[in-house]
């Protein structure tokens, strides 16, 4: 187990190197540079040249990348070009709201997804099953920027229940987390339904039924526990997707967070900031994957790591 962990963590180095190099190249290859974006289209050529050299952007790309790497290994992510604040400060300020949102959405998605999936699988009437499957299809297909706006129009504007401009606190978390959770919950519901249906066909379930165990107990005690392994795997992997999905939801609901920061950084070609965010998110993703592998082993005793 220790060797496995060491190997996985060592893999972090080439992964992050590759990720930063790819981001760096992509940002530099897309047209437009931070200075022209900062100064606007009316800037004179001499002003552009002056600011470029003051910011060190006139040096070769390789030099810029190596400088970035050199500083990054020493824990210095540099300063944002746009705001001129330390990148580390910007990220630590914006990471918590995103994690809270993703976590809330994850909890919602797991609860709603599992309940819906089990209900569909265990439904006596096929109409209930079909209805749930249809709803999950809608949940999956609705883009969050659209469903988010619909929720605002319904719950904030028409019904007047929830504020729009509030950004902190539980009340402000409700609509964004529901929006973000909906597609994830739909996926989980479908996975749960398929998994439960499969387990229900197993011999031990038939044995339990033959013994006269109530259908309720069969589904919730015997079948669900075994059916949950794939569901939890999907859920854990979804978390990273929820952090990524926060980009759109944070914009629609005007929540401060890492996603919006990333969008601003990319649109303004703020190289150091974009790099820093990618570095942090990629590390999180890698750690999360390692975590999922470990949880696997805990959940399923048959899985062992050498």
């Amino acid at each position: 187990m220790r060797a496995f962990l060491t190997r996985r963590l060592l893999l972090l180095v080439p992964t992050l190197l590759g990720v930063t190099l790819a981001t760096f190249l992509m940002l530099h290859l897309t047209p437009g540079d931070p200075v022209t974006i900062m100064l606007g289209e009316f800037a004179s050529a001499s002003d552009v040249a002056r600011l470029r050299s003051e910011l060190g952007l006139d040096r070769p790309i390789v030099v810029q990348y190596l400088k970035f790497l050199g500083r990054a290994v020493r824990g210095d992510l540099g300063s944002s070009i746009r705001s001129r604040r330390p990148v580390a400060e910007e990220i630590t300020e914006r990471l918590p709201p995103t994690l809270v949102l993703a976590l809330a959405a994850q909890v919602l998605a797991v609860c709603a997804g599992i309940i819906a999936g089990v209900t569909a699988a265990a439904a006596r009437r096929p109409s209930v099953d079909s209805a749930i499957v249809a709803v999950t299809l809608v949940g999956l297909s609705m883009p969050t920027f659209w469903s988010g706006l619909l929720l605002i129009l319904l719950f904030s504007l028409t019904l007047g229940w929830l504020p729009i401009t509030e950004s902190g606190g539980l009340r402000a978390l409700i609509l964004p987390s529901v929006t973000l959770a909906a597609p994830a919950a739909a996926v989980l519901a479908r996975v749960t339904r398929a998994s439960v249906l499969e387990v229900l066909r197993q011999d031990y379930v038939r044995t339990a039924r033959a013994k006269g165990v109530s259908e309720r107990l069969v589904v919730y005690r015997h079948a669900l526990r075994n059916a949950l392994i794939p569901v939890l795997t999907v859920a854990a992997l979804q978390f990273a997707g929820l952090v990524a999905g926060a980009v759109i939801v944070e914009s629609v609901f005007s929540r401060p967070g890492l996603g919006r920061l990333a969008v601003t950084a990319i649109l303004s070609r703020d190289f150091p900031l974009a790099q820093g965010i990618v570095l942090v998110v990629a590390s999180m993703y890698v750690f999360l994957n390692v975590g999922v592998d470990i949880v696997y082993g805990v959940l399923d005793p048959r899985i062992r790591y050498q």
Partner: protein
Amino acid sequence: MAAAQALARIVVHREARRAVAISLISLLVSLLLVPLPLTYAQPKSGGELALVSTEEPDTLDPQKTGTAITGQLMRYLGDTLITKDLKGNYIPALARSWTVSADGLTWTFQLRNDVKFHDGSALNAQAVKASIERALAPETKSPIAGSLFGPVAEVQAAGDFTVTIKLKEPFAPFLDNLTDPRAMIVSPQAVRDLGDRFGRSPVGTGPFKFQEWRSADRIIFARNPDYVWAPSYVHAGPPFMDRIVLRIMPESAAQVAAFERGELSVLAVPPTDVRRLQGTNKYTIFSFLRKGVGLFMEFNVTKEPFSDIRVRRAVSHAIEKNSVLQIGLEGLGEVASGPLPPSIWGYWDGIKEYAPKYDPGKAKALLAEAGWRPGPDGVLQKDGKPFSFVLYTAPIDTWTRSAQIVQAQLRAFGILMEIQTFEFGTLLAKLKAGEHPAEFMGYTYTSPDIVQLWFHSSNIGTGLAFSHDNDSKLDALIEASRRETDQGKRLTIYRDIQKYVVDQVLWVPLWTNTNYFAVQPNVQGAKTHPDGFLVLNDLWLK
């Protein structure tokens, strides 16, 4: 696993507790803000004005900012040496009076002696000198503020309250640039004390002072109770409202919903919602013409077929601008005629009559004269080649719709126009390189000096001279406009430039849009400044 769950629980709890605390505070705040019954409409003190912005400021340091929203906010946080009244005249602000030497090189400003920065330090000649020198210093890396002052040779504190700015050469936009909010005077003491943190807690002399900035959420300014140096176009003394809060909301549909729910006091109305909000009759709607030309078609005069001035003129007679305005912009603006709109000083009123008008006969005659004859399929031909070109444009709704109207109108004359859309940054790069035959463009600017950026040959390939027209006569006119400090003579030069650009048909100006502000009914005394911002000094909440 268990530990992680416990951790998650703690995080959630802490969040929940903070949430309760925040909603308690907001409850208290809202109780304090309950409006008292009002018997007569005397301005009432107190309250909070909620503004909204799509974009978050990069920094609130006026000398380091590159974002437009920071410029808007600096109008409330700071004062400039001089300013413009509601008619656009230059009037005293921090400077009581000013003089300029006959050669236009030495500007002398007499400062007010009763002005204090928000940090309590006094505004005097030394402070003004330090502030301007900071804007100009290379280590400030100033995107905009540094270039506003022009070719400065030296800033001198000639007395306690006398400042002299010496220029290397005459710089006509100088006075106008001094009214730019980013030319505001910042507190040198705060700059020293705060260092890099100045941009997150700026200190000026304006009617409002900085209170708080929650990243990606809101920026709060509080009333400056000591403000007695207001310019003459607003009441003397501090503003009426306790606070202004700028909410940062990237999604415009969410902004509109928040405004309709009463959570925002003022809204810049997106074009799609203008008619609907007007129709509710609930809100006061202000409008002003954009300071710039919203959309024009520009020809690259170095490429076929628009290297022939007769073809350019023919196209300008073939486009019926009012349909483009009505359909492309849903009529929310006015037809444009020249390179400057009526909203920018220097605009020549005669341009409307002077500019070419829709005239199918003239268009056909000019095309025939240039050698373009209808082919068998109705498309014009010359030397066996059909008249077809690509219009480069950006993915902006109103531009795309306008392009389709122009496309249909030109098709009627046998001209095939293909529309190609590029992301804005890419588009600019392509236009600089000059690979386009024609493009759609628009601009917003405060002064007529913009013509230098669009038409001076030094900007070919580097600046905005996308017509790639290397014309010494036009260059000379533009250079004269920048040297001339007599405003009357400058007006004449700008008239000549506008006529010349129309004569050469470098552009077919199409329309300029009207911008709309909606204001909640409880907001009283709202005024818009001709420079396109809301004047807050006289504003109060019922």
